[in-house]
């Protein structure tokens, strides 16, 4: 399966969009070589703002730019983009529903070496809690590209969560991305797995393994965490024996919260796979860290089996 890096795709898409739309401006907090906004900077230095290591100021500054008609993208690691600038996002951007896109890069545990300070286990929860905010977590490179193009045409605040590593491409090239829509990745009729981000590919692996044992798993990519089409989620959760959610995020306030809220009272057993209420930590590899936090296909397989 083709691998793509979400950061690289994001940077390239931003550059393409910059050529098409002169209102797009990009703000960076000294991580441009990592978030890949450096591609935009090289081509459009006038529309690129290096804000130094000051996420709060960057975010309010972006609000000011949007007040002059610009479509502003702020960039940093997810933990800083969403956490450090929470009040700025809330007051200046979300209350008046300004057209600012907050892009949280190296999200989840994907900055494996840097430890708890740089790993975002709660960014989705924080961003989802703010009224007027749209929260997106793409599963792969293709979906990242489609999302970035889509949100430029949406007039309002968006939080976009970007992984640091190469991920297998699952989102069909000819499929349009629609904000709020969950996407069926794989059909199955025993158990449904709702996943997002890197966990979509892990869920597909799990489904492939389980198929060999005669267990049929439906995989749904819930890349829009807010808004999300509740009817489609309910539809995907019907005619199965149980539900698994899988996310690279705290079980508090992320995908598990979204799904259990939507499916409240439907009576089906549900196992949430995600980060228990704890911080990340340093590790020598991403996979090692994902295993420590139970974010593996094996963990999904075990969860599915428990439900049958």
């Amino acid at each position, binding site marked *: 399966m083709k691998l793509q890096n979400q950061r690289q795709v994001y940077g390239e898409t931003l550059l393409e969009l910059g050529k098409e739309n002169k209102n797009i401006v990009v703000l960076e907090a000294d991580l441009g070589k990592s978030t890949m906004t450096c591609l935009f900077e090289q081509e459009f230095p006038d529309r690129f703002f290096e804000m130094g290591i000051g996420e709060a100021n960057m975010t309010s500054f972006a609000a000011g730019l*949007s007040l002059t008609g610009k479509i502003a993208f702020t960039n940093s690691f997810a933990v800083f983009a969403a956490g450090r600038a929470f009040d700025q996002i809330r007051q200046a951007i979300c209350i008046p529903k300004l057209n600012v896109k907050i892009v949280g890069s190296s999200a989840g545990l994907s900055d494996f070496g840097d430890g708890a300070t740089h790993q975002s286990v709660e960014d989705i929860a924080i961003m989802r809690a703010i009224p007027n905010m749209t929260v997106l977590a793409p599963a792969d490179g293709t979906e990242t590209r489609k999302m970035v193009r889509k949100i430029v045409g949406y007039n309002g605040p968006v939080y976009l969560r970007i992984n640091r590593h190469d991920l297998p491409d699952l989102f069909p090239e000819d499929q349009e991305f629609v904000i709020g829509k969950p996407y069926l990745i794989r059909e199955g009729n025993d158990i449904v797995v709702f996943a997002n981000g890197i966990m979509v590919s892990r869920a597909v692996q799990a489904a492939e393994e389980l198929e060999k044992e005669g267990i049929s798993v439906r995989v749904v990519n819930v890349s829009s965490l807010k808004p999300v089409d509740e009817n489609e989620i309910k539809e995907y959760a019907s005619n199965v024996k149980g539900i698994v959610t899988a996310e690279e995020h705290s079980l508090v306030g992320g995908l598990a919260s979204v799904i259990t809220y939507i499916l409240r009272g439907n009576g089906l057993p549900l196992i949430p796979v995600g980060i228990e209420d704890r911080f990340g930590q340093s590790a020598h590899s991403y996979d090692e860290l994902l295993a420590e936090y139970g974010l593996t296909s094996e963990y999904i397989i075990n969860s599915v089996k428990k439900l049958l």
Partner: protein
Amino acid sequence: MTVAELEKMACKLRIDVIKMVGVGQKGHLGGSCSLGEIISVLYFYRMKHDPKNPKWEDRDRFILSKGHAALIQYAALVEAGYFPRTEIDSVKCLGAILQGHPDMKTTPGIEGNTGSLGQGLSMACGMAAGLRLDKKNNKVYCIIGDGEIAEGQIWEAAMTASVFKLENLIVFLDKNNLQATGQITDRYDTNPLIEKWKAFGWHVAEVDGHNIKGIIEILNEVDKVTGKPKIIIAHTIKGKGIAFAENVASFHNGELTKEQFDQACAELNKKINLL
């Protein structure tokens, strides 16, 4: 408007503020009244704006970073004709267009949401950069408070304005010497101001914030400065124009009795008649 007319206007705005505070309700009286003259000069002399077309592309921009002084801005907006006078009667009522802090979504003439302190200067910087990108020569005005500048983000923005050489940004620092709980020099001393702003690369000027002529002159003077952002440190009196509230910290967000309400209105009306 002439200087005399602007002086009258400052008194009228203060009366509107008192009406909005009302009797027996909390309201940000002190920090609103310290801005009477500055707001009058900006809205009725200096800024290019059109109350009939609040989103006019060629308008100057204004951000009240110390958003709790919203009442004085509402007073200016209603005097300028942005919305009917009846709106000030329902300030802070459920569903009102005039919220406790400035809200651009509900109030015509408000340019950005402030209230959580320390953020408006960054927003003003972004606006100044955006206007420059569009090769517009409009100016961006912003008011910050001497209590507010304890917020670290103010100093992030101070660096930004200087790094980007935002010469179209003019900031008033309302130096009324009081924070909510007392004298700034006793509580959390944000002085010295001139040295700090100079060190951050700004052109620094000073003015008596209650002297209309002085405010106009200093604005003309800073206009000549190029290549850097400008800050005017305005020496003001919190609660200015209302004798019993002047320099009294408790009127930061205080209540008026019926007697105080009447006395404040009478004082200001008397001053208007003398002008």
